[in-house]
């Protein structure tokens, strides 16, 4: 047998990708490190944002140039928006500046844990979808919220693993498993809160379709190497999901056959 070729069946809003790893472009120590991390991640989608900037300050130019050169699909975000109006306006600004109707929709409800505001998120998703946007909502792992987001037309969901930037991993496996069990036909990407490749692999083993993260790579000692580690873990997790995990059991069961065991004699 040969090695299993990468799948090409990760489809978001009608576009199909090979990589299931979406990478953020913030917090790197230099634009060059960011560029190298994107390459090593094998990502085909990167997130980015919009902020006020003095025209004399050209610090963001190199980042933008490298992002363009990466050839990745752009997924602009509405990070930091705390109201429906702010999020809708920033999405419209993003659509013009990046020439894409894809938007990672964030409506933040609390400063302490940056938890999405579920009510604002549904309302903003509804407005933006009616304006022609393809909304990828950053949401919690609440089943009913996710169902409401699907009801208003979201074709992708992005539940959190843990609050942004915490590196805590999958904090609520019950909710996440329930989400996957109850919403089978919508691609779901675990967005935020992961700190280690093993956590990404676990999410993929649970049947999630992709992983979006930023801090865990950008804040690693060697971001490009960590990006590669996440990419490998995500691939491994997906393969494991496709292969089908064994059932867990309470009692031990020998893997080596017991028949023919030496030194055993009928008493």
């Amino acid at each position: 047998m040969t090695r299993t070729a990468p799948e090409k069946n990760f489809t978001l809003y009608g576009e199909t990708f090979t990589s299931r790893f979406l990478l953020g472009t913030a917090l790197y120590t230099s634009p060059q490190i960011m560029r190298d991390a994107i390459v090593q991640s094998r990502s085909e989608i990167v997130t980015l944002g919009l902020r006020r900037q003095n025209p004399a300050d050209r610090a963001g130019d190199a980042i933008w140039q490298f992002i363009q050169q990466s050839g990745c699909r752009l997924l602009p975000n509405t990070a930091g928006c705390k109201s429906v109006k702010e999020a809708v306006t920033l999405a419209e600004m993003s659509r013009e500046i990046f020439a894409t109707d894809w938007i990672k929709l964030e409506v933040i409800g609390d400063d302490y844990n940056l938890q999405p505001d579920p009510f604002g998120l549904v309302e903003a998703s509804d407005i933006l979808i009616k304006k022609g946007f393809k909304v990828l909502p950053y949401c919690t792992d609440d089943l009913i919220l996710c169902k409401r987001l699907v009801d208003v037309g979201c074709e992708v969901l992005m539940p959190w693993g843990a609050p942004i930037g915490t590196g805590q991993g999958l904090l609520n496996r019950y909710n996440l498993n329930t989400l996957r069990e109850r919403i089978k036909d919508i691609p779901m990407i675990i967005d935020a809160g992961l700190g280690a490749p093993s956590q990404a692999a676990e999410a993929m083993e649970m049947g999630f379709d992709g992983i979006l993260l930023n801090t865990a790579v950008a804040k690693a000692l060697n971001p490009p190497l960590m990006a590669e580690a996440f990419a490998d873990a995500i691939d491994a997790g997906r393969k494991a999901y496709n292969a089908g995990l064994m059932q867990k059991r309470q009692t031990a069961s020998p893997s080596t056959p017991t028949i023919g065991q030496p030194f055993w004699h009928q008493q």
Partner: protein
Amino acid sequence: MITISLNNETKEIVANILLSDALVQWGFGETKIAVAINGEFVPRSTYNLRTILADDQIDIVTPIGGG
């Protein structure tokens, strides 16, 4: 002269100036930007139709890295 807010900084600018002209004056002529005034998105195609008014709150954004 009128007073406006540009990216949360108070600025004075001549009255009856078009947004397109103000953007050049502020140094955004060649920059990749998007604009909102008073929280409402202003499409690029309307920059030369929009006159800046006193007390307008203008937000001008450019691409940055994001998660």
